[in-house]
């Protein structure tokens, strides 16, 4: 190990911003992005002229319609930014890659104030085009066996077409090895819904109880509809600054204490050495290797819930409980409630607040560290937050601490 503290401690989140969030807003991705970016820049006490770095995940043209948002060239041009550093791409430690790259760019002296954003318009895209169909699975279509490339060539012919299926395999393995029950898994979703009721921007706010959850239609066992996040439209932006600006920012800065970036197992949905966990295991472990803080120091957890099962995987990966113990950890819901031992996904998470693809969780971590959560502010100490993004072979995490400010 090199001497001195990890370089990410040269970075702090000084501004946060978010556009309108909702279902089928009917607005373009650049329109939403500009709202979020201008919001974040002003929140940091800066102007567009101060921004000299720009980053996003996953970059333009990636994935299905509405998934990627605008790329950095489009945003640079729209905001007329003069950049010393810019980055957009999908390979790396999950959605967190853009944030982590920005931290390192700042530490390297490549930029001083980096604007980082993530935009989705998946709800509007689905409304316009319908959910994209998948034809010819298992030879069922007129064209016979579908031809595909990459990982999908091994799964598509068998109808394992979605991350829901791949994650369900991990879920069923956890049922087998650890005795995970649907009643336990439900509490990730129920906790999210309870918190979403206190978040005016959340897309699903009506009450939901265990009976509602158990009655929902099955998607891919053991995952039901409420185990899957809700596509939405929205943009989230952050300003990440050199730490020497932190005390000058108008709001308490969220200092980056450690990043989790490792991938030590095979980069695969179905060949990982332990099929009860995922790359999260490695990212989580590597984060704690870079800090003297320990899991019991964490006051607030924002853990990826693209599917409820991923949150369980992250709880173990980050050491909040032992391997196989996450079902019992969330059971009953009190431990992860706003007033619990580890308040979890306090704005409702992606299951109920909407699939802002990791950045909604990051935004909420900053809101909570600042103490600006209003009705949903966690009571008591709010000094340390952890944010985790990703599932399957991609994973990244971030440990944040509250500055004085």
């Amino acid at each position, binding site marked *: 190990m090199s001497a001195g503290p990890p370089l990410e401690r040269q970075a702090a989140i000084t501004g946060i911003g978010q556009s309108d969030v909702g279902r089928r807003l009917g607005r373009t991705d650049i329109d939403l992005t500009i709202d979020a970016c201008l919001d974040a820049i002003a929140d940091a006490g800066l102007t567009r002229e101060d921004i000299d770095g720009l980053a996003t995940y996953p970059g333009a043209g990636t994935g299905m319609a509405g998934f990627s948002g605008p790329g950095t060239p489009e945003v640079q041009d729209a905001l007329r930014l003069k950049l010393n550093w810019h980055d957009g791409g999908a390979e790396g430690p999950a959605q967190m890659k853009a944030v982590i790259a920005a931290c390192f760019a700042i530490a390297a002296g490549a930029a001083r104030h980096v604007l980082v954003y993530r935009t989705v318009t998946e709800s509007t895209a689905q409304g316009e085009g319908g959910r994209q*169909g998948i034809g010819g699975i298992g030879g069922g279509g007129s064209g*016979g066996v579908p031809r595909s490339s990459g990982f999908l060539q091994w799964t598509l012919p068998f*109808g*394992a077409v979605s991350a*829901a299926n791949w994650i369900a395999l991990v879920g*069923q393995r956890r049922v*087998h090895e650890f005795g995970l029950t649907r009643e336990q898994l439900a509490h990730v979703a129920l906790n999210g819904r309870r918190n979403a009721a206190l978040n005016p921007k959340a897309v699903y706010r009506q009450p939901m109880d265990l009976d509602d959850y158990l009655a929902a239609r099955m998607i*891919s*066992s053991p995952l039901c509809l409420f185990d899957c996040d809700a596509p939405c439209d929205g943009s989230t932006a952050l300003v990440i600054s050199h730490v020497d600006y932190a005390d000058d920012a108008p709001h308490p800065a969220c200092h980056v204490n450690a990043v989790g970036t490792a991938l030590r197992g095979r980069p695969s949905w179905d060949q990982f050495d332990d*099929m009860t966990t995922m790359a999260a295991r490695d990212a989580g472990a590597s984060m704690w290797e870079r800090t003297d803080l320990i899991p019991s120091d964490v006051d607030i957890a924002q853990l990826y819930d693209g599917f409820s099962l991923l949150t369980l995987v992250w709880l173990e990966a980050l050491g909040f409980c032992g391997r196989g113990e996450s079902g019992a950890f969330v059971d009953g819901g009190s431990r992860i409630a706003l007033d619990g031992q580890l308040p979890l996904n306090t704005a409702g998470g992606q299951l109920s607040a909407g699939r802002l693809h990791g950045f909604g969780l990051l935004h909420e971590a900053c809101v909570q560290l600042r103490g600006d959560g209003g009705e949903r502010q966690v009571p008591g100490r709010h000094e340390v937050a952890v944010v985790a993004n990703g599932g399957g072979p991609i994973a990244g995490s971030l440990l944040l601490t509250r500055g004085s400010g």
Partner: protein
Amino acid sequence: MSGRGRVHAYTVNHQQWIPGSEPYVIGLVEIVEQPDVRLTTNLVDCESEDGLIGSDVEVTFEQHDEVFLPLFRSVDSSKESNS
């Protein structure tokens, strides 16, 4: 290769990715010759989910023109002399 495997995990898919499709079983099968190599596949002719994980399966090929898909079905243990 023997064509034999063991079920490592499975899921019953209900979502109609193709409208009108019936539920089907997606399996993750370890190859007996090298258990850390797994195939995502379909489990066919399985009578029950009970005890499915850890159970022995054997390959059965489903032909689509020039492509043969490797699916797996349960091995009837009563027919096995030693397993």
